[in-house]
């Protein structure tokens, strides 16, 4: 994991003027392209949040257009992650270009939820990818997801870009996972 190149960027060197960093944060905040990543029941509530005109997540600037991880900024892990699915998830997350955000939606993604004692379910998505916001519920109402998104947006607005840019790769259990 040490192959990071010399910091070429302005941001990484921490020299971004205030107004500019405000603008950059603002635009990341309101332009979150979210990868259509449905896993289980929660995916349907996520679909409702994205697709139902009653909630219409596009209002918040969350655009559910991209079908490829390469264009996504945000991923909502919505539902049960099985051990078989975990490696693809890790990979898809890695394949998203930085800066990227993760919302863990529902008990399954948070902790394993109803399947806490199942032999085939990963107990918590944060074991494999770093999570920015946890939305509780089983499934969370679409509004709850919207609330999570608003929370994430507040977080983005106030985050330190250099930190996010430099963000250390996730370390699980003491060593980097691949």
């Amino acid at each position, binding site marked *: 994991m040490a192959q990071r190149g010399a910091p070429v960027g302005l941001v990484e060197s921490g020299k971004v003027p205030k107004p500019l960093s405000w603008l950059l944060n603002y635009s990341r905040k309101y332009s979150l392209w979210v990868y*259509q*990543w449905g896993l289980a*029941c929660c995916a349907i509530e996520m679909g*409702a949040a994205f697709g139902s005109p009653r909630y219409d997540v596009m209002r918040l600037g969350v655009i559910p257009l991209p079908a490829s991880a390469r264009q996504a900024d945000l991923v909502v892990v919505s539902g049960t992650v*099985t051990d078989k*699915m975990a490696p*693809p998830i890790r990979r*898809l997350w890695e394949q998203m270009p930085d800066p990227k955000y993760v919302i863990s939606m529902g008990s399954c993604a948070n902790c394993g939820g109803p*399947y806490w*004692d199942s032999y085939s379910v990963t107990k918590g998505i944060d074991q494999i990818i770093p999570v920015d916001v946890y939305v509780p519920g089983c499934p969370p109402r679409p509004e709850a997801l919207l609330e999570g998104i608003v929370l994430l947006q507040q977080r983005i607005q106030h985050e330190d870009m250099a930190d996010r840019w430099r963000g250390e790769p996730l370390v699980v259990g003491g060593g980097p996972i691949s």
Partner: protein
Amino acid sequence: MTITQHQQQAYIAGQAAEARLRFELETEGMTLNIGPQHPATHGTLRIVVRLDGEQVVWADPVCGYMHRGYEKLCEVRKYQQVTTLINRIDWLGHFANEVPFILAVEQLYDVEAPPRAQWIRTIFFEMARMANLGLFLGDMGVQLGAITPVFFAFRDREHVLNLMEAATGGRFHPNYDRVGGLKEDLPKGWVDECKEVMKRQREFCDEMEELLVGNEIFQTRTRGIGVIPQQIGLDYGLSGANIRASGVDWDLRRDRPTPLAWKEADWKVWTHPDGDSFARYWVRLQEVRESTKIVDQLLEGLPSGPVMAKMPARLRVPKGEAWVNTENPLGEMGYYVVSDGGPSGPFRCKIRSASFNNISIVPWLLRGVYVPDVITILASLYFILGDIDR
């Protein structure tokens, strides 16, 4: 009905393409993974297709990406806990999953829920069907590239879910059934609201008919695509709308005696002779309409009374076994429950879910079709991942 000409051609083409692939070095086939994370598989199904150009030579569904070990989990849960767990098998038909299980346990225990409970169960069952198939009606559009229908589907589905939530407390996972009845009665004003919603659902069906079914593009995309001949469908164990679209007049709601209230209403089982993707869409559309009618009629005649039979405080299910299957939105779903008489939960619980059988036809059906049709066919087969993998 024999195999249609289209199927025959597709089959032959598939054979030919595969032969070419094997024996002629020059044509290098392409293996394409559709899924596990692909918009077309609504979830985490992975389909490995081998292509020759754009034609599918062989398709293999790889499931298990959503396997959560239900049957094993059921053995370590109490009956009440199982009810809430199995909501999550077919997450779109939430309530419908509970019913066969509860019926099986009631059969073991030899109680019967009071009529009001049965009627309400039926109403919710049909509402689950609407919520489930309604989404399909829109989703099929998305798979074919029309983005608007799915928004309509979500819009009108919300009303159904609201009703669900008002009565049960859960939009999705109601956990409303109890052995011997229901958790609580409906809240005031629910029935009137429900009638409103049924009207809206019918409007939604009309809208879909105008937007999609009548659309020439939709028809060219779906007619004659993915034809399932009757016999082959039966051989693969298809159920639900998939087999009704191939002209088999078979509906467990009508054909299997249950304590539920379907027999009280006047409704019709729709079939379609074609067996193609269009037929499957059309049948489901009619089924949603039919469901609204069932609900309307049941609401009219809702008997009064308690919703819970007299039950002891501690549930101790006698030794025995029971098998109950019902006509779930996706097809036949059944539970085979074995009790050893112990105080905790079932000793064994075998789950027959519809989608697993429904997708078993995929390798047969996809052979020789074009990549875009793969999507049409998968969408029209309509499966829920949780229902496949459990």
